[in-house]
């Protein structure tokens, strides 16, 4: 309306406008008709005056006649008659044609011609009577008029008097009737207007009461929905004003989150004060101000929210506190493009935080296990086995010391020192093997023990962290054992998949094979080990005696060497995921040059380069500085040198360092060559090539120990 958007008030404004229009219409009509009535009343008065004037003229005429005979005639009478006649005449004409007359008070008065036909008819008849009467008057009043003229006037007056009176009376009555009719119309208009206005008012009332009731119902419905949302949402929802106060309308969950029964009206900053640092609190205040009072992009500053993770400790009962993590998110609420409040959403992200923490721990654990795995792969399996066994005992010892409940300073001191000694040894062993993560954990235990040593007073409770740490060491040890077992299993799988020469069942029955097998079992038995020997290839009986003897002798030496140094005890093999019985695989075939190729492979622990280094140092074969710079290849080559043995003490099977040097001597003596392949913990493989018997020894080709080192 008028270019103004009235919105929901449009109907109301239209209704009020109509109401005023009706009222105004009634008022205008009232005014118009009232003025007409006033005018009519004036006319009725004038009509009544005409009646009176008709009588006055007749009376004056009679009086003039009567006084004509007297000596002192009234001089006023002719003037009075003339005046009355003049007024009557002007008024009559004014009624008939419109014109000016004089009012009762003598002032000029303009009249419109009467628009009523009946009244005009009366006036016409009156004029017909009046005109001769008026002429008789003029004749009688003319200067020098005689008595005849007066007599004629009186005669005319007597004739016209009653008729004029009657006509003027009719005119008055008629005009009163017209005025009454108009008054009636006015009443009707008033009643109609007021009725319309009342109807309009009633419509407005009904419409708006209905509208208000609907609005109330909608409002109630909306309020209920809001209440339901605020009651049921798990989020803390509230409005925050520029004074950091929480609005009175907030979700029910908020109280529980903030540990406040009535957070409405409280200051968010005050509620958070116990939970966060002063710096975070100050930053939070600045951040809220930034959103409320500064021209920044809400989305582009969200990452600066200092309350995106708040740790809150809630106590439901004395001594019963729970740790929760809350995330507060802030959104602007604007009114007329001005930020008035912030809508704050608080979420309990405890589960997410815990999940993240678990994930992180799991990643760390996994990384630690991976590093442990790498560490373990570097460690010599036998040394590892020895370490694991020792570490297990060490931890059991610590455990038993911790179980001792004896109180008193001396008992505690003895316990601390006892555990410390064991821990220190364990740390040293772990570090020596390169198990740095385990060593670090044991170091942590040492630190705890150092702290306890420095305490003035000690109770059994102070040992709790030590017990926890020892338990974690048990767990570490178990992890290591699991990993070791898995590594061994993997190695075993690789071995299974490695290609091997075909084994001929008939070959197993050959006499020399039976001999090797018996020899192997004999040595194994003395060493408390188990072995299985398989053979594939030529029947040695077909070979020239020199070659046959060489092969028999070399294989015997390899069998002895493999069982003593390579094959592990059944327990060790089980731990490494290998079959309990060690496997010796022998294969002899002719090579392309007509010579012989011997393959001897065992699935034991391979050659210990470190063991050779130590033995070479001990025997003085290598100077200390050379021993440390020698390559694996050079060191493995030393096993063919006389007098070098890794066996601690000599026995019937090994230890004097005379064995492989004899093999080398035989093979090289016949112009052959030896290759070694070994992987620590997995296998050792000797490949011997002997030239055809007729050939002369080739010195250049007879370089010993041409090893392939596979690690």
């Amino acid at each position, binding site marked *: 309306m008028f270019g103004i958007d009235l919105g929901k008030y449009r109907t109301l404004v239209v209704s009020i406008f109509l109401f005023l229009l009706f009222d105004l219409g009634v008022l205008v009509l009232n005014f118009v008709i009232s003025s007409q009535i006033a005018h009519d009343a004036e006319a009725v008065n004038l009509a009544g005056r005409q009646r009176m004037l008709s009588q006055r003229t007749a009376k004056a005429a009679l009086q003039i006649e009567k006084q004509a005979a007297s000596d002192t005639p009234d001089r006023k009478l002719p003037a009075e008659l003339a005046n009355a006649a003049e007024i009557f005449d002007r008024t009559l004409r004014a009624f008939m044609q419109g014109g000016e007359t004089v009012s009762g008070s003598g002032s000029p008065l303009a009249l419109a011609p009467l628009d009523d036909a009946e009244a005009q008819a009366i006036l016409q008849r009156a004029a017909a009577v009046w005109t001769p009467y008026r002429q008789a008057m003029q004749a009688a009043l003319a200067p020098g008029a005689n008595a005849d003229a007066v007599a004629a006037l009186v005669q005319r007056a007597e004739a016209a008097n009653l008729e004029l009176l009657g006509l003027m009376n009719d005119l008055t009555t008629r005009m009163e009737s017209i005025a009454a009719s108009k008054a009636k119309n006015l009443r009707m208009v008033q009643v109609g207007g007021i009725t319309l206005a009342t109807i309009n008012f009633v419509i407005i009332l009904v419409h708006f009461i209905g509208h208000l009731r609907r609005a109330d119902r909608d409002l109630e419905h909306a309020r209920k929905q809001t209440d339901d949302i605020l009651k049921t949402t798990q989020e803390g929802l509230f409005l925050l004003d520029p004074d950091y106060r929480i609005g009175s309308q907030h979700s029910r969950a908020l109280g529980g989150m903030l540990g406040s029964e009535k957070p409405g009206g409280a200051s968010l900053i005050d509620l958070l004060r116990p939970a966060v640092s002063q*710096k975070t609190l*100050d*930053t939070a205040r*600045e*951040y809220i*101000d*930034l959103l409320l009072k*500064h*021209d*920044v*992009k809400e*989305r*582009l*500053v969200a*990452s*600066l929210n*200092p309350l995106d993770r708040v740790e809150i400790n809630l106590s439901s009962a004395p001594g019963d506190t729970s740790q929760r993590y809350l995330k507060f998110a802030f959104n602007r609420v604007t009114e007329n493009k001005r930020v008035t409040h912030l809508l704050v959403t608080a979420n309990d992200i405890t589960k997410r935080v815990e999940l993240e923490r678990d994930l992180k721990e799991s990643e760390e654990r996994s990384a630690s296990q991976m590093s442990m795995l790498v560490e373990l792969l570097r460690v010599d399996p036998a040394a590892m086995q020895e370490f694991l066994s020792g570490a297990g005992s060490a931890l059991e010892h610590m455990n038993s010391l911790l179980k001792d409940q004896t109180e008193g300073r001396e008992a505690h001191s003895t316990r601390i020192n006892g555990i410390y000694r064991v821990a220190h040894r364990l740390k040293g062993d772990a570090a020596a093997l390169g198990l740095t993560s385990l060593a670090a954990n044991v170091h942590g235990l040492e630190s705890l023990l150092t702290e306890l040593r420095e305490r003035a007073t000690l109770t059994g409770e102070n040992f709790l962290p030590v017990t926890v740490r020892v338990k974690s060491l048990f767990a570490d040890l178990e992890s290591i054992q699991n990993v070791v077992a898995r590594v061994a299993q993997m190695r075993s799988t690789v071995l299974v998949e490695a290609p091997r020469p075909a084994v001929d069942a008939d070959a197993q029955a050959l006499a020399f094979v039976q001999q090797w097998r018996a020899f192997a079992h004999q040595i194994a038995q003395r060493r408390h080990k188990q072995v299985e020997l398989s053979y594939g290839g030529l029947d040695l009986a077909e070979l020239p005696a020199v070659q046959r003897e060489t092969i028999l002798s070399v294989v015997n030496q390899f069998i002895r060497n493999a069982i003593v140094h390579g094959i592990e005890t059944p327990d060790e093999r089980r731990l490494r995921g290998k079959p309990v019985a060690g496997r010796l695989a022998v294969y002899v075939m002719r090579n392309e040059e007509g010579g012989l190729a011997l393959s001897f492979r065992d699935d034991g622990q391979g050659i210990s380069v470190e063991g050779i280094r130590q033995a070479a140092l001990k025997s003085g074969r290598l100077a200390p500085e050379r021993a440390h710079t020698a390559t694996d290849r050079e060191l493995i080559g030393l096993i063919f040198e006389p007098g070098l043995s890794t066996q601690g003490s000599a026995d019937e099977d090994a230890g004097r360092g005379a064995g492989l040097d004899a093999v080398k001597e035989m093979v090289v003596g016949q112009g052959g060559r030896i290759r070694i392949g070994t992987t620590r913990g997995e296998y050792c493989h000797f490949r011997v090539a002997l030239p055809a018997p007729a050939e002369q020894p080739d010195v250049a080709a007879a370089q010993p120990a041409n090893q392939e080192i596979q690690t």
Partner: protein
Amino acid sequence: MKLLIVDDSNIIRSKIARALGAYGLEVVGLAANGKDAVARAAATRPDVVTMDLTMPEMDGIECIREIRKLRPKVQILVVSALADKATAIQALKEGAQGFLCKPFTEQELTEAIGELIEEAQNG
């Protein structure tokens, strides 16, 4: 739309210039410190500025204050590592409109700038 890039790291400046140049902005200046940035802002009259906070000569906060005096309607995006939220908030109070945390992806950068440009065009 003219862009001024303020960062003491050459790598970051190049990264922003490459990404926002491809996005359609006209790179009118590169500044490695606050003082240079103010001089370039006066000379090139940029519409948008990316602003590092920790810089030699004049730090980002003071630089924002100076540039805001020269160009009251310029849109400023703070691009900084989130070591100290309070400092970043202070920078925004001095007249920057947005904050982007280092390290950022090209998409994050263009989205943030897109939002500021919209503001500049509407304003």
